[in-house]
C-alpha cells in the first residue's frame, strides 16, 4: 500500500516537470550541440562572450531564396561576423525532405549561395529546431554575449517572396544586432516569423 502510494506520488511529480518547446525572449537561450558541415561539433556555450545569430535555412524555400539571391543575408553575415558576431545557419530538414544535404553537399551549396556564416549546423533529427520552436525558414534568433535570447522571429517586416521588398523593409536582425553591439536593450524582441515550414522528420 505504501509502495503504491509512493510510486504514484513520484509519477505524479515527474509529470509536472513537462518539457516546453518554446524559448522565451529575455531568458537564457537553451544549450545545444550540433555537428557542422565540416564534421566539427559545436556547442552554443562555446560562443559565450560573443553575440550569436541562429538562422534556420532551406535553400529550396522561396523566402530563403529571396534573401540570398540578391545577397541580403550573405551581406549581413559578412558584416556582423566581421564585428565579432557568431552566425550559425541551422538546417533542420529531415533526411529525404527538401533542404537536407550531407556535410559535403552543404559545403558546395554554401559556396554557390555565397554564404558567409561562421558555420552551418546540421540538425536532421530536428531536435534543436523543436527545442527553439523554429517554425519557418528563415526563422531568426539573436542571442547576446551573456547567452540571453534577445530576439526571435522574422528577418524583416515584409513577409513576401519578392526580393524587391528587401530595401524598403525594416530588418529586425540588423536592428537587434546593432543594439546588442552598442550595449543597448533590444526594442523589438519578438515578431511572427514568415517563410516555408521547417521540414521536420515525421
Amino acid at each position, binding site marked *: *500500500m505504501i509502495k503504491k502510494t509512493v510510486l504514484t506520488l513520484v509519477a505524479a*511529480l515527474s509529470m509536472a516537470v513537462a518539457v516546453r518547446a*518554446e524559448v522565451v525572449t529575455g531568458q537564457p537561450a537553451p544549450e545545444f550541440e550540433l555537428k557542422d558541415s565540416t564534421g566539427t561539433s559545436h556547442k552554443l556555450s562555446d560562443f559565450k562572450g560573443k553575440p550569436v545569430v541562429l538562422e534556420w535555412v532551406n535553400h529550396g524555400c522561396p523566402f530563403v531564396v529571396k534573401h540570398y539571391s540578391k545577397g541580403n543575408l550573405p551581406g549581413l553575415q559578412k558584416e556582423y561576423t566581421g564585428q565579432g558576431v557568431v552566425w550559425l545557419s541551422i538546417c533542420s530538414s529531415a533526411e529525404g525532405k527538401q533542404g537536407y544535404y550531407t556535410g559535403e553537399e552543404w559545403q558546395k551549396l554554401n559556396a554557390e549561395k555565397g554564404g558567409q556564416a561562421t558555420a552551418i549546423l546540421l540538425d536532421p533529427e530536428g531536435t534543436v529546431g523543436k527545442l527553439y520552436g523554429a*517554425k519557418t525558414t528563415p526563422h531568426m534568433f539573436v542571442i547576446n554575449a551573456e547567452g540571453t535570447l534577445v530576439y526571435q522571429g522574422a528577418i524583416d517586416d515584409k513577409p513576401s517572396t519578392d526580393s524587391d521588398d528587401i530595401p524598403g523593409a525594416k530588418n529586425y536582425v540588423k536592428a537587434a544586432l546593432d543594439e546588442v553591439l552598442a550595449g543597448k536593450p533590444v526594442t523589438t524582441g*519578438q515578431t511572427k516569423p514568415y517563410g516555408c*515550414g521547417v*521540414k521536420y522528420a515525421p
Partner: protein
Amino acid sequence: MIRRIFILLAVLFTLTARAEPVRDKYVTAELIAEHTGFQPGQPFWVAVKLTMDPHWHTYWRNAGDSGLGTTVDWELPEGFQAGPVVWPHPERIPSDPLVSYGYENEVLLLTEITPPPGWSGDQVTLKAKAAWLMCNDVCIPGHATIALELPVTAAPIADERWAAAFAATRQALPVTSDAWSLATRVSPEFIELSLTPRDGAARAVSEVYFFPYRDDLIDHAAAQEWSTNGSAFALRIKRSTLSPGTPEQINGVLVSSPSWLAGKSVPALAVETTVSTVATPANGPVAGGSSLTLLTGLLLMFVGGMILNLMPCVFPVLSLKIVNLVEQSRETHESALKHAGAFTGGVLLSMWVLAAVLLALRGSGSTVGWAFQMSSPAFVLGLTFLFLLIGLNMFGVFEIGIGLTRAGGGLQEKKGLTGSFFSGLLTTVAGAPCAGPFLGTAIGFALAQPAGLALLAFTAMGLGTAAPYALLSTRPQLLKALPRPGAWMETMKQFMAFPMLVTAGWFASIFVKLHGGDDVTFRLLTAFVLVGASAWVFGKWTALHRAAGVRWAGRIVTVLLLAVAVRYALHKSDLRVEPWSKARVEQLRQAGQPVLVDFTAEWCAICQVNKRVALEHRDVIAKLKEKGVTVLMADWTDQNADVAAGLAEFGRAAVPLYLLYGRDASQPPEILPQALTPGLVLEALDRLQ
C-alpha cells in the same frame, strides 16, 4: 458576305462573358463572374478561381504557422470599385509540428465589383493580378494576370457554368447569426469562447475549430478543447507566445461539423467580439467564476472534509471506526489522541496524493477538477455509468468493496498506530466516489490556486475529514450523542441513490450533446439497461456465498455487459449526412453530383432499422464515398410541411422513402425499396455511371 459573318461572330462574342484560365505550374487561376453580364450601377460578384493540382494547397488570409495568403490586385477601368476579398473558411493543413490554414483542390475568392452608374460601354474588361504561394512538400510562389470580359445586359442571369461553385463557396462563408450568443474570456495562456445556443441552433456540433484573422493570436498547432456543461459550450484556445498582452478584440471564423444552424448547412460562423472578461492567474481557467477569499475557501474545504463522513460510503462505519479507535487505545495503552493522530496522518496522506495527481495533471496542461476532460464523450459516458452504478449500489442491487474491506481490513486490524493510520487512509479512498458532486465547488476553487495554496486547501479538507474521529475518540462519551447504527442507515443509503441518479442524468445530458449522433438517446438508454443488467448479475452471482466458479462467471458476464454498453453508447456512424432541402438537391444535380435522399423520422422503426443495417454498413459508406454521393436526410420527425411536400412529389404520404439521383440531371431518381439491405444499396450505387 464574309464581312457579315465576321460582324455576326463579333456580336455573338460580345454577348458572352469571356475569360481565359492561366496556369502557373501547379495552380490554374481564372477570373469568373456569377452572372453572364452586368447592369451599370448594380454591384455584382466575381471570383478568382484557383484550381490546385492534387496535393498542392494555397493559403487563407492568415496562413497559420507558415505560408503566405493569396493576394489579389485589381486593374479596373475608371469608376469601377472592387471590394475586399471575401474568403470561404479554410481547412487546417497539418505538417507536424506545424499547422497552416488554406485550401486544397479548388477555391473561389469572392469580390464584389461596383460598376459606375454612368458606364457607357457595352462591356467591361476586368483585370486582376493574383499572387499566391503554392505548397505541397515544397513551396513555390505563383502568380497570374487574369482577365474577364463581361457584357452589359439588361437583366443579368446566373452563369450556369459557375452556379454550383458559387453556391458551394457561399455556404462556406462565415455567417453572422442570432442562433448562438458568444462571449469571450481571456487569460494569459488561453482564449475562451463560450457559446450559448438559441433558437435555430443545431442540436449538436462537433469538430469545432476557431480560425483567427490575426496570425499572432493563437498557437495554430495546439488542439482546441471543446466542452459543454449541459446548457452552453466552450472552446478553449491556446494563445500564441507572440500574442499581445491583452487582446481586446477577437476576430475570426468558427467552423464546425456539420452545421451551426438546425436544418441549414452553415459550417462557419463569423466571430467579431470584444473580450468580456480578462482572467488573472488567481481565478484561473474554467473555475466556475469562484472568487472566494482564501479563508472562506479553506473553511469550505474543512467543512467539505467533515461532510465526507456523512457520505453513505463512509457514515455507516463512522461510529464503528471510532469505537475501534477507542478500543485500540485501551488495548495498547497509547493515548487515544495518538491514535487519532495516526488516523489523521492516514487521511492527510491520501488527500495529498490526490492533490499531487490532480496538480500534476493540471501542470501537464489539462483542465482539471470536475471539468477535467468534459470534452471527451468517452470520459463523460464513464462518469454517467459510474454514478448510475453508485446509485444502483446504494439501492442494494450489488455490494462492492467487501473484498477491499477484507484486504483493507487486514491492514486496519493491525494492532496499534499502524492500524489507525491505514484506517484513515482508507476513509478517503472509500469516500472519494461519493465526494464528487458535493465537493465540486470547493475542489474547483482549490485547483484554481497556485500549487502551494491548493495543497493547503486539500490539507484543510483532510483535517475536516479526520476532525470527527479526533474529537470523538478523545471524548468517547460524545459517541452516545451519535445515532446508533440501525435500519435507518440502510434507508439513508438507499435515499442517497437519488442524488447519484440525478448526477448520472446530468452527465448523460452532456454526453448526448457531445456525441451528437441522431440516435444517441436510444443508444444511451439501451446502454443504461445493459449497465443495470451488469449490476444485477454482479450482485447476484459474485456474492460471497456463491461457489468460486459461479463468482468468476458472474464477474466475466458483468465485464462483458459493461463493455457492450460502452461500445454501443459510443458508437457513431461514419455516415456523413447533410440536411435535405429542395434547393440543395437542385444545386447538387446541376453540378452533376449523385444524391441519395433518405426521407425518415425518429418514430419510424423501419427507417431506423434500414439506416442501421443498410446505410451505415461499412461497405455502403465506402461505396458512397467512392461514387461521390452526397447523402441528404429529410427528417420528418415533426411532420413538417417541407418534407411532406417532398414526399408528395413522389406520390407518398409516409416514410421511409429512398431516392437515388444519378449524375444525369434530366433523369428521374431511382426509388429504392422500403426494406433496405446493404446488398440492395450497393447494387443501386453500382448502377450509377
